[in-house]
């Protein structure tokens, strides 16, 4: 981005050693001055980035490093930090030996992939369905995206009440239709499904909004061309709309996947991981290891594993969006 850099330097006062007027560089400058200026040119963007980088370093890098360090220590919560003992790979090895970790990983994978698949299918389908201008649609769209704006803790509470076996509205309805009470959160078989339903309720709107935006930015004339070419509604969706929406759908999916791996509050409030370990996702397991069993080193090791999974997904996202960008730039040229 040479232009931006150039423009910026115009406003950067240059040192007296450069022998230049601050705002109007003379055409003939010495070699050293030129090199100094070029250096300044090149480093200016980074200078501007410095505060942000420093902030990130403290806010992000430090905790991560600390957690990596901690994962090699044997340290219980509540004991003096000096009492921490270096334990090598022991934390990681013990994780691998712990069947609960595998269960929890299984729950996390099941949860994350199920909710994301459901949310993407539902969100995209709804966007396609509600795309046509129907009266009252804008109101409906607004109502529809409300769940996303509710704080996770509140979402957990809402659903816990709705799922309540005695007072919950869902069981009232179930009884009214004659199904009888459903053990929404109290049975091992149902609990994960119930939690998944709540997450789908909360996050389908996210996919919906993005899919809607993607739909609205599709080239209208290509869709008209498909109609003239003999495509029916379904064929237009399948052969034209969806392929063109794909980049957005993929990004949205990855974003949701990353998020689904880290979900905590809603499940903590609804089931606290139970019954048994049936809804104990990794983040909850980490939380319990750290604050219930008070094994900080072990919890750190586990959270590093989770971080790795999420990191891998983030890299996938980054690589994909870079590739898109390159393609987009080609379009522009």
């Amino acid at each position, binding site marked *: 981005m040479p232009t931006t850099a150039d423009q910026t330097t115009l406003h950067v006062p240059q040192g007296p050693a450069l022998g230049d007027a601050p705002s109007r560089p003379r055409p003939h400058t010495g070699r050293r001055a030129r090199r100094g200026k070029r250096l300044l040119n090149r480093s200016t963007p980074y200078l501007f980035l410095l505060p942000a980088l420093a902030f990130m370093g403290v806010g992000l890098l430090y905790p991560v490093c600390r957690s990596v360090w901690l994962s090699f220590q044997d340290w219980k919560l509540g004991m003096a930090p000096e009492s921490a003992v270096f334990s090598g790979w022991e934390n990681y090895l013990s994780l691998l030996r712990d069947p609960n970790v595998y269960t929890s990983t299984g729950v996390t994978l099941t949860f994350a992939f199920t909710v994301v698949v459901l949310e993407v299918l539902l969100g995209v389908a709804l966007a396609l369905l509600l795309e046509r201008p129907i009266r009252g649609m804008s109101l409906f769209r607004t109502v529809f995206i409300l769940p996303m704006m509710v704080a996770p803790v509140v979402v957990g509470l809402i659903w816990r009440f709705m799922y309540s076996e005695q007072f919950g509205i869902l069981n009232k309805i179930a009884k009214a239709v004659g199904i009888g009470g459903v053990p929404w959160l109290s049975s091992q078989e149902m609990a994960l499904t119930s939690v998944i339903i709540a997450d789908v309720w909360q996050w389908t709107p996210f996919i919906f909004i993005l899919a809607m935006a993607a739909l609205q930015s599709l*080239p209208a*004339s290509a869709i008209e*061309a*498909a*109609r003239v070419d*003999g495509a029916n509604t379904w064929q237009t969706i399948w*052969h034209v709309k969806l392929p063109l929406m794909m980049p957005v759908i993929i990004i949205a999916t990855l974003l949701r996947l990353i998020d689904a791996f880290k979900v905590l509050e809603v499940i903590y409030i609804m089931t606290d991981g139970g019954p048994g370990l049936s809804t104990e996702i990794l983040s909850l397991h980490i939380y319990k290891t750290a604050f219930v069993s008070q094994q900080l080193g072990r919890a750190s090791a586990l959270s590093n594993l989770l971080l790795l999974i999420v990191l891998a997904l983030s890299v996938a996202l980054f690589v994909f969006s870079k590739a898109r960008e390159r393609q987009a730039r080609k379009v522009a040229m």
Partner: protein
Amino acid sequence: MVEIVLENVAKRFGPISVIEGLNLTMRDNEFTVLVGPSGCGKSTTLRMIAGLEDVSDGEIYINGKPVSHLEPKERDIAMVFQDYALYPHMNVARNMSFALRLAHYDRAEIARRIEQVADMLGIRELLGRKPRELSGGQRQRVAMGRALVRDASTFLFDEPLSNLDAKLRTQMRAELALMRQRIRKNMIYVTHDQIEAMTLGDRIIVMSKGKIMQAGTPEELFKRPANKFVAGFIGSPSMNFFDAELASNDGPLAVVGDGFSLGLPLDAAGRLKAHRGRPITIGIRPTAFQVVADGQSAENAIRAPVVVSEYIGSNSIVMSEIGHTQVTIDIGSDAPIAVGESVQVRVAPEAIYLFDPATERVL
């Protein structure tokens, strides 16, 4: 046998009326050309026929059946869009084959058609590329190809050659004319290009501000324009118009204007009776002026000072000022005349068009 009829078709976008009371019959196998200034509603008309826009009023009939309620795909129409409307995610071959694939043509047949049309349009080597990797003119040819591979009964072309260079355009025009003889289908063709309109069209429809000004064969429109608009629109360079006055009844049958006096054919006397002694607009095509050698006197001669001289090889176009009116004169293959000199031209009385200044109708 396909006949398209537009009956009192109107189109409004909200409060804006774009098409008003359009009546039009396109007979079977006719090549109809729609011309008119930008924004006059040509694309809108095509889009209504295709079924992409609803008609606000009136009805469109294809083969005698009203089609207002029919989807585009039920109208058996192929269309070349003004903005190409290619599928961005499909390569050229897939863009062209899309309709055929939907209609379950077999692969060999699809391949055969694509090859044939791609050869005709000179886009064979582009078949593997995506639209974004093509130039504007290449995209336009692909858009054309996508329509031409189809078996539709009616083809709609919205300025399909507008983005091509002169040579390619001439070539494509010839290809179209050839294809036109091979497949007798209904074609409706929008263009700004006079030559395309005149050479391709069985019938030309001149539109202005959402109304039809005149419909007829190219020859009819050129020789017998119904009004000043058509007279000025058809023919290039356009017809010259002058404000003048028709000599009163006691004088000879002539028009007198600023800097000229021209006699009219005697047989016009009858229809001009009511206009004697009143203002009149006259029109003379640039090609209707004949150069008269200096010193030689001639009937209906005008001396025209040359303001701009454009020598374009086969002929010379001269801009002049007669009275206060800018005039374009085509002096044919004669040697170019220098600016500042003047030329003496004569106009045959039969070559003078007369218009009512109020209604702009031809007299």
